């Protein structure tokens, strides 16, 4: 194998770090947004109102059966059509949050269903509405059930940011392609980018598990 050219990485480090920064920014905003949206959808699925249940089900089925890349391209072209001119990374955050919310919602729903039902009933007998009971009693008890799948899903979300390079978002994968095109070195930048993704992933999983440990003590 030919010698590895480390210089190309060193010279272009600012470009890589800029891309990495955008990846992190998008992830840090999209993960909580997706979780909140997912919680809302999960509650809709468990609602007593049929229209909410059906609506949520349609939402989920559409998002989970259509490729993410197609979803994000559609949002990218639809928003300007209705007059919204956002920079590409905002479109990316929106697309990613919506897409990931479908997965988070299933995790939350499964966790809610695995809780003992008695609590919901006693809360309601004390006069709370189903929604209030959900928010104040059920949701706070979820963390032990949801943190590991949440970590997994968040890791998937971070990896999915790479797809945003196709709608001109200047995240890490797009930065890598720019370095490739400008330096005519096609392998080293990719290997470096892969290492960076691994690093983010490892750090994130490590941090989250530390948080989990801290919370359970």
């Amino acid at each position, binding site marked *: *194998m030919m010698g590895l050219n480390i210089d190309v990485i060193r010279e272009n480090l600012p470009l890589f770090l800029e891309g990495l920064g955008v990846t992190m920014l998008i992830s840090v905003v999209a993960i909580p947004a997706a979780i909140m949206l997912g919680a809302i959808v999960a509650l809709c699925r468990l609602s007593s109102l049929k229209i909410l249940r059906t609506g949520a089900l349609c939402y989920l089925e*559409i998002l989970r059966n259509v*490729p993410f*890349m*197609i979803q994000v391209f559609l949002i990218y*072209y639809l928003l300007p059509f209705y007059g919204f001119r956002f920079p590409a990374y905002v479109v990316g955050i929106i697309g990613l949050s919506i897409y990931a919310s479908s997965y988070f919602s299933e995790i939350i729903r499964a966790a809610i269903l695995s809780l003992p039902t008695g609590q919901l009933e006693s809360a309601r007998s004390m006069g709370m509405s189903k929604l209030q009971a959900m928010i104040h009693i059920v949701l706070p008890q979820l963390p032990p059930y949801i943190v590991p799948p949440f970590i997994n899903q968040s890791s998937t979300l971070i990896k999915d940011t790479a*797809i945003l390079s196709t709608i001109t978002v200047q995240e890490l994968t797009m930065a890598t392609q720019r370095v490739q095109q400008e330096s005519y070195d*096609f*392998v080293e930048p990719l290997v470096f980018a892969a290492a960076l993704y*691994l690093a983010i992933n490892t750090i994130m999983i490590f941090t989250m598990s530390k948080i989990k440990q801290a919370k359970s003590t």
Partner: protein
Amino acid sequence: MLDLIYAVQAIPKLAVGLSIAVGFTCLALFLSVTGGLILSYIRSFNIRTVNIIINAYVTYIRGTPLLVQLYLVYYLLPEIGFELPAFVAGLTAFVLNSAAIMHEVIRGGLSSIPPGQQEAAIAAGMTNRAIWRYITFPQALIKVLPQIISEFTILLKATPLLAFISIVETFRIAQLIYSNNYRPIEVLIGAAIIFFCVNFSVSRLGIFMEKKLAGRGL
């Protein structure tokens, strides 16, 4: 003004792309399940060095985006001597990715079978091959089948990435169509519809099969 006639017009051509994608996915899934089985088998020998290598490979697969893995196979392999056509490069990347996941799924499936059954079978005089064929494999298959079906939809949804290593599939065809008729929204809606139809049907089929097989469970 959105005019859905463009979506309808695009669908026949898009469907051609989707059938390529489905064929690709079936092939990739078959190879990756095979790969997963082989990996599980190798793992069962418990050779420390080998396990470390497999773990490193799985960590790489799970820690990096598929798009990056795809580019790496496409650009890196020729440098070390493998000149693969784009289709083979894409297939390799997808199989490498999926096999890592499948092997964990298979391991999970195999370990969920109560060892008591195998011990009883040995006591009853069954050969290892027979045990595998009549006891282990059927139960493991029932256990992992839903996940294999789900992996089909995951791989199919990932096929648009192949457009970026010059493979002509659904998304690339969509791009070619809307570069000509300037109707990206309608054409992409068409693509979304046909993907939805295929994936939705496959998931429903999976649920149906799961119910039927569960009835037969041991």
